[in-house]
C-alpha cells in the first residue's frame, strides 16, 4: 500500500503532460469534428465524399497503427514532426473522425419541423444552422463528446510507445526501477480513472446547461452514446 502511494506521488509530474496532450488533441479534434461533420451534410457531393473518406478511414483503422504511421512513416515523406506533434496529430485525426459522426448525427436528430419553421420564417441556411439547429443539437452532442474526451485521455497511453513521456511511460520507468509492478500499474489505473471521472463530470454539467429549456420529450429520444474503447 505504501508502495502504491509512493508510485502515485511519483506519477504526478507526468499528469500535466497527459493533460496537455489530451487538451490540445481535444481542441484540434473538435475543430476537425465540427468541420468534417458539417461537410458531411453539405449539398456539394464532392465535399461529402471527401469528408466521408476521412471519417471512414480514421474510424476504420486502429489508433495504434495510426500513431505508428505518423511516427514512423510520415518522416519518410519529408515531413519531420517531433514525437509530440506526430502523436497529437494522430490522436486528433482519430478522435476527430468519431466526433464528426457525432456532430452529423446530432444535427440530423434535430426535428425536421424545426428546420421547416425556420424556413417558413425565411431564414437563410446559415441563420438556420446557427440560431435554430446547433442550439438544439448541442445537448445531444455533449455527452457523446464527453465519452470521446475520455477515449482521448485513454488513447494518450499509446503515446508511451513512441517515446513521449506521459503517465504510462513514466509508470514504466518507475516499474523498471523498483521492479514492483502491481502498485505502479494500480496507481496508474487509479489516476486515469480519476481524470476520466472529472471529464465525465464536466460533460454532465455542460449538458445540463445546454438542455435547460428543452422539453424532456427530446431528451428521452437521446440515443445510447456509443463509447469508443481503449
Amino acid at each position: 500500500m505504501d508502495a502504491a502511494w509512493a508510485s502515485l506521488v511519483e506519477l504526478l509530474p507526468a499528469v500535466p503532460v497527459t493533460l496537455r496532450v489530451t487538451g490540445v488533441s481535444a481542441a484540434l479534434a473538435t475543430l476537425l469534428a465540427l468541420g468534417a461533420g458539417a461537410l458531411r451534410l453539405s449539398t456539394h457531393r464532392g465535399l461529402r465524399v471527401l469528408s466521408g473518406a476521412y471519417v471512414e478511414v480514421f474510424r476504420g483503422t486502429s489508433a495504434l497503427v495510426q500513431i505508428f504511421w505518423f511516427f514512423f512513416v510520415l518522416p519518410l515523406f519529408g515531413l519531420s514532426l517531433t514525437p509530440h506533434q506526430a502523436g497529437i496529430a494522430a490522436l486528433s485525426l482519430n478522435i476527430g473522425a468519431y466526433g464528426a459522426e457525432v456532430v452529423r448525427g446530432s444535427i440530423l436528430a434535430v426535428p425536421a419541423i424545426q428546420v421547416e419553421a425556420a424556413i417558413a420564417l425565411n431564414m437563410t441556411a446559415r441563420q438556420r444552422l446557427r440560431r435554430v439547429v446547433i442550439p438544439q443539437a448541442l445537448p445531444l452532442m455533449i455527452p457523446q463528446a464527453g465519452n470521446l474526451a475520455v477515449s482521448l485521455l485513454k488513447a494518450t497511453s499509446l503515446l508511451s510507445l513512441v517515446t513521449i513521456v506521459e503517465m504510462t511511460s513514466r509508470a514504466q520507468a518507475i516499474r523498471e526501477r523498483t521492479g514492483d509492478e502491481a502498485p505502479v500499474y494500480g496507481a496508474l489505473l487509479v489516476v486515469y480513472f480519476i481524470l476520466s471521472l472529472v471529464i465525465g463530470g464536466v460533460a454532465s454539467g455542460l449538458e445540463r446547461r445546454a438542455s435547460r429549456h428543452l422539453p424532456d420529450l427530446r431528451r428521452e429520444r437521446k440515443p445510447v452514446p456509443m463509447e469508443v474503447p481503449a
Partner: protein
Amino acid sequence: MLRNVTKAYGAEIVLRGLDLEVARGERVAVIGRSGSGKTTLLRLVMGLERPTSGDIILGTTTMWSELDRRGQPSASERHLRHVRSRIGMVFQQFNLFPTMTARQNVAEGPRHVLRLSRAEAERRASDLLERVGLHQKADRYPSELSGGEQQRVAIARALAMGPEVMLFDEITSALDPELVGEVLDVLRELAVDSGVTMLIVTHEIAFAREVADRVVFLADGEIAEQGPPRRLLDDPTDARTKAFLNAVLRR
C-alpha cells in the same frame, strides 16, 4: 390578388391537376380526410415542396420561375426567399424554437431576417403577443407554455413577418380539447380584423362554417367540391363530401 393555379403530382400522385384560386383577403378553409393532400397543398404554397408540374403563383409572381436540368420546376434560393417572405405558416406542432423565450421567438424573424433594430423587433413582438393574449407570458420558454399557448405564440411569430398570406396546417389537431378554443379565438379575430388572406386546413367543421368565406373539400388529390360554407356543409352535392361530413358530424 393571390392566384394559385396548381397542377401538382407528388411521388405517388398526391395532388392531381389541382386548380385553386384564392382572392386577396379571402378566408378559405380546406377540409378532407387524412391523406387527401391537404398538408401537401399548404407545403406547396409555402415552397417547402416542389410541384412535379404546374405553377404556383402569388399575385403576379411565379414561385418556381425556372426549369432545372430535368425540366422540372425550379427556382433559386433567393427567389424562393423573396416569394416566401410574403407568406407565413403555422404548423401542427413543435413550432417554436425551444431555446428561446416566447418574445425572442416572435422577435427572431423581424430581427434577423427583416433586420429591424432590436428595440423595434421587441416592440413588434410585444404588440403581437398582446394581440394573442399572451403578454404576461412573453418571457417564458416554450417548455413552460401549454400547447394552446405555444400555438398562439406561433401565430404571433408568423404574423410578425407581415405576410400577405397566412397558412394554417391543422394547428389545433394536436391539442388537448380544452385548449383548442383559445387558438380558434385568435384565428377568428384575425379573420375579422386583418386583411390577411388565410388558408386554413382544419378538422373543426363548425369553425370553418363560422369563419370561412369559402370551404374547399379535398378528396383523392383533387378538389371534390368547393363553395360557400353554408351551402357546402349543409347541402353538399358530391357523394364524397356527403360521406365525409356524415362520418365527421356523427361524432
